[in-house]
C-alpha cells in the first residue's frame, strides 16, 4: 500500500532495461534498496497517444490503484512524477497535449500557482485520507496517547522535550510532508483562518521545536513507510492514514486540533480533446461506483467519497477537524522556505564524486551542471526548494585513482549567496582524470561523516559512472561501515550513471539503508534534484 516515488524499482530489477523494468514496480516485496528510474518520469517520456487511452500524469501516492484500473473498462497509461514537479508541468503548460488528466493526492498547491486553474477542467475526488502521526504502540502508551487522542500542540511539546522522534517526507517533494507542515503550522499558530505570511513568520520558532524531533526524512511517503517498517530507527512517522493503517503495531494519533486531508482529485486537463473527456467521464464514474469505492476502502484503507458508502470501523468515529489551507502561493512557499531554512534539522550532505578519466567530456560537464543547479541555477520553485539551503553543510569528496581533498562548505543562517557561489566555483572546476577508486572515496566520506555535527541530518550521495578499478573493495567498505556506531552512520544514496556496476551499487544502498537513483537514461541533474528530498 505504500507507493514508491517516481519510477521507483526494486533493486533486483535494476539491471534490466528501463522500459519493461517500470512494470516490475508492483512486485509484492520491495527490496529496501530501490532504484529511481527517472527515465520514466516527466514530459521527456515518449507517451504515444491513442484515442482509446487516457494518459494520466500522477503522483506516486496513487500507484497502488493502478492494478484496479484495469477493470474500469478504460485503457489508462499513467506516468508518475513528484507532486511539485507535476504541479509545475501542469501550470507551465508542458502537460498539455502530453497528458489528458492529472491525478495527485491534492490539487491545492497546484491551484495556487498562477495560471494553473485555467489548465484544469473537471476535478473529481476519488477518495480521502488525512495526514496523521503514527507512533509505535509502546511509545504511544508511554506518552499517554494510546487512545489516539493528542493535539499537534501536545505533540510539539513532547517533541521539544525530546520525548519521541519521528520521520516525515520532505514538504518540498511530497504532499504528505507538505500537508503535515501546513497542519502543524496552522495548529501551532492558533490562527483560526488560513495562514498568511505574517503568521508563518510568527510560528516558525515553534515549528523549529516541533521538527527538532524529526530524525528521518524522505522524498516520498512510500519510501518513508518502507524504511520505517524495515528499520525503525524513529518512534513513528507522519504519513497518510491509509499508509499507517496498513502497517503493524502502530497507534494512529488523530490530532484534535485538526488535520489536512488528501482528496485525490482525478482532474481532466482543459486541453483534453472530446474523446479523452469521454474516457475521463467513464473512468471517474466507475471509480465512484459504490462497489469500486468499497474496494478502494478495504484494499487501500482510504476513506470513500460517495455518501452511499459509509466508512468502515477502522477509521474510527470521531469527526476529523479540517484545518484551513492557505489560499495564496506566497504563504505556502514561505512555509516551505521556513521549514527548509529555519525549522528542520539542517542537512549535512556528503557528495562522493567520480572524477575518473571515463567521466571526461559530456559526463563531467553533466556532473558540473547537476551541482551548479543545486546552487540556485534552477529558478523554478522545485529548483529553489531543492538547492543547498541556509544552515546546511555540504562536503565534496572527489575520487579518481585515489581520494582527492574533501572540501566542506558551510552555508550560514542568513544569506547563503556567497557560499553558493563558492560551491558553484568548485563544481565548475571539477576535472576528470585517472582511475575509479569508488570505495576509497566512500570510505573517506564515511570517515568524514564522523566529524559531522550531530545536530545535522547527515547523508551520503555516491555518484560513479563505472566499476571500481583502484583501492579498497566493497568488502573493505562494508567492514568500515559495520565498525561505525549504528546510530550515526549515514545512508548512502547512489546514482547510477554511465556504466555503473548496478549489482554492487545496489549492495551499497542496501547495506546503508539508502536508495538507488537511475540517471543512466536521464539527466544527472534530475537525479540529484530528486535525491535532495532524501537529504
Amino acid at each position: 500500500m505504500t507507493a514508491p516515488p517516481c519510477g521507483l524499482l526494486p533493486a533486483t530489477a535494476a539491471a534490466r532495461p528501463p522500459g519493461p523494468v517500470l512494470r516490475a514496480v508492483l512486485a509484492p516485496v520491495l527490496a529496501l534498496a530501490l532504484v529511481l528510474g527517472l527515465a520514466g518520469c516527466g514530459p521527456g517520456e515518449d507517451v504515444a497517444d491513442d484515442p482509446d487511452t487516457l494518459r494520466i500524469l500522477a503522483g506516486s501516492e496513487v500507484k497502488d490503484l493502478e492494478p484496479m484500473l484495469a477493470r474500469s473498462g478504460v485503457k489508462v497509461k499513467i506516468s508518475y512524477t513528484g507532486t511539485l514537479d507535476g504541479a509545475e508541468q501542469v501550470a507551465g503548460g508542458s502537460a498539455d497535449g502530453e497528458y489528458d488528466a492529472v491525478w495527485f493526492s491534492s490539487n491545492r498547491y497546484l491551484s495556487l500557482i498562477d495560471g494553473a486553474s485555467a489548465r484544469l477542467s473537471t476535478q473529481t475526488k476519488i477518495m480521502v485520507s488525512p495526514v496523521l502521526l503514527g507512533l509505535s504502540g509502546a511509545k504511544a502508551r508511554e506518552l499517554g496517547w494510546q487512545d489516539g487522542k493528542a493535539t499537534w500542540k501536545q505533540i510539539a511539546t513532547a517533541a521539544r522535550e525530546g520525548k519521541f522522534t519521528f520521520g516525515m517526507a520532505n514538504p518540498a517533494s511530497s504532499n504528505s510532508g507538505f500537508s503535515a507542515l501546513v497542519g502543524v503550522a496552522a495548529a501551532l499558530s492558533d490562527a483560526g483562518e488560513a495562514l498568511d505570511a505574517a503568521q508563518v513568520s510568527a510560528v516558525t520558532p515553534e515549528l523549529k521545536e516541533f521538527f527538532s524531533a524529526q530524525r528521518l526524512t524522505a522524498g516520498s511517503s512510500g519510501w518513508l513507510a518502507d524504511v520505517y517498517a524495515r528499520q525503525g530507527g524513529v518512534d513513528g512517522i507522519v504519513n497518510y492514514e491509509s499508509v499507517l493503517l496498513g502497517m503493524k503495531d502502530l497507534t494512529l494519533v488523530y490530532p484534535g486540533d485538526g488535520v489536512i486531508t488528501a482528496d485525490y482529485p482525478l482532474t481532466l486537463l482543459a486541453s483534453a480533446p472530446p474523446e479523452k473527456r469521454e474516457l475521463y467521464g467513464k473512468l471517474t464514474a466507475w471509480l465512484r461506483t459504490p462497489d469500486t469505492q468499497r474496494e478502494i476502502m478495504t484494499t487501500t484503507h482510504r476513506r470513500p467519497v460517495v455518501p452511499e458508502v459509509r466508512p468502515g470501523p477502522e477509521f474510527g468515529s470521531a469527526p476529523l477537524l479540517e484545518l484551513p489551507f492557505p489560499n495564496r502561493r506566497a504563504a505556502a512557499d514561505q512555509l516551505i522556505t521556513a521549514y527548509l531554512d529555519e525549522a528542520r534539522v539542517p542537512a549535512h550532505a556528503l557528495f562522493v564524486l567520480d572524477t575518473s578519466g571515463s567521466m571526461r567530456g559530456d559526463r563531467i560537464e553533466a556532473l558540473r551542471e547537476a551541482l551548479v543547479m543545486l546552487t540556485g541555477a534552477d529558478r523554478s520553485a522545485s529548483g529553489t526548494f531543492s538547492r543547498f539551503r541556509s544552515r546546511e553543510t555540504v562536503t565534496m569528496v572527489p575520487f579518481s585513482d585515489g581520494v582527492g581533498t574533501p572540501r566542506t562548505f558551510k552555508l550560514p543562517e542568513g544569506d547563503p549567496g556567497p557560499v553558493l557561489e563558492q560551491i558553484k566555483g568548485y563544481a565548475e572546476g571539477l576535472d576528470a582524470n585517472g582511475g575509479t577508486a569508488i570505495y576509497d572515496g566512500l570510505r573517506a566520506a564515511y570517515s568524514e561523516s564522523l566529524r559531522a555535527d550531530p545536530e545535522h541530518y547527515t547523508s551520503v550521495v555516491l555518484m560513479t559512472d563505472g566499476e571500481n578499478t583502484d583501492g579498497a573493495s566493497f568488502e573493505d567498505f562494508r567492514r568500515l561501515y559495520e565498525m561505525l556506531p549504528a546510530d550515526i552512520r549515514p545512508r548512502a544514496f547512489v546514482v547510477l550513471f554511465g556504466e555503473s556496476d548496478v549489482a554492487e551499487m545496489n549492495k551499497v544502498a542496501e547495506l546503508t539503508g539508502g536508495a538507488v537513483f537511475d540517471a543512466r537514461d536521464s539527466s544527472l541533474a534530475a537525479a540529484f534534484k530528486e535525491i535532495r528530498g532524501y537529504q
Partner: protein
Amino acid sequence: MKRGVMRRSIGIALALLLGAAVVVAVVLGNGAGGPTVVRGVIGSEKKPFFDDPRVRAAFEKHGLRVEVDTAGSRQIATEVDLDGYAFAFPSSVPAAEKIRKDRGVTRVFSPFYSPMAVATFEPIAGVLAEAGLVRDSGRGYQVLDVAAYMELVAKGTRWDELPGNTAYPARKRVLLTTTDVRTSNSAAMYLAMTSYVANGEDVVTAAGQVPEAAGKVAPVFLDQGYSQSSTEAPFEDYLVMGSGKTPMVIVYEAQYLSRLFARDGSITPEMRLLYPAPTVLSKHTLVPFTEQAGEVGRLLTEDPELRALAARHGFRTADPAAFTDLAAKTGAPIARDLVDVVEPPAYDRLEQLITTIERLYADGSVPQAEGGS
C-alpha cells in the same frame, strides 16, 4: 478550429458521458429519423438533472436530445466560446443577462429557480441559535441572520468562543464554507447577499459603492483559505466528511433537496437546511441561440413532465404545488415561501465586486479581522 477553442475549454466539464450510454439505448432503432441533438453549456449543478434518464426520455418524446457541457456561470458569460453551443444555461440572471445582450437574444426562459441555502448539522444549528445567529422564521423553517454572521466574522470569532458551545468546540473560525468566488456562481450568489448587507441593506447599484462593500465582504471568502472551484465539491465534503471539515456550507437549496427527495440515505437525520436572511434566488436562465434551443427552453418551462422532474431534482418551478407536495412528504422544515429575498446586483456591479476581491487574493493584503488571533 477557431482561436476560441482554448478559451472554450476553460473550466468546461464534459457532461454528456454518463448520459451517453442511456441515450444510445434510447436512440437505438430510431435510425435516421432520430432526435435532433441540441448542445448547451450549463452550470454544473444542473448536470444531474440533464443526465437523468427520465429527463432525457421526456425530451426524446419531443424529438430532442439535449447534450450538455458544464462550466461556471461566470465563465459561461465571459470565457466560454458560445459559438459551439445552441444555448447557454447559467445559474443566475446577471450572467444570463450579459449573454443575452452580447448575443442579441430577445427571448430567454427561466424555467426554475432555487434559493441559496445553508446546509449544516443539528448540533451546530443549536450552537448558532444560542449565539443569536439562527432563529425560527415562524413559518416552519430556520433562518441564518447574515448581518449577525458578518459581524461575527469581522470579529474573528472562533467556534470555541461561542457561548455555551460544547457541541462543536473547534479552535477554527466561524466561517461558512463556499466555493471560490472567482469561478463559481454559488459563491457569487453568496456575494450578492453579503454585499447587500454590507451596503447598508441595499443592492450594490453604483460603482462608487463597490470598494467599501467588497472590502467588508472579502473576509468571508478570503479567511476560509483555499476554496474549491465547483459547487458540488464542498457539498460532497459535507455529505461525506461531515462537520469536521464542513460544519456549514453554502448550497443551492436544490442540491440538498434533490438528495432528500431521492431518499438515498445521504441526508442523515442530523443534517439541517437553513435559509440565510436575506437570501438570493438563483434563477436558472436559458438563453437560446437556435430555434431548437428555444424549444428546449419552452419545454422546460411548460411541459408538465419536465416540470415535475425538475421539482424532483429540488428545483422550484412555475408549478409550486409539485414542489410543496414533495417537500411536505419529507416532513423536513423546508420553506414554502421565502420572504426575505433580495435581488443580486446587475452583471457589471457583481463583476466589479468579484474583481475587487480577486485583487485582494492576488496582493495578499486582506484586511484581517480584528481580534480572534
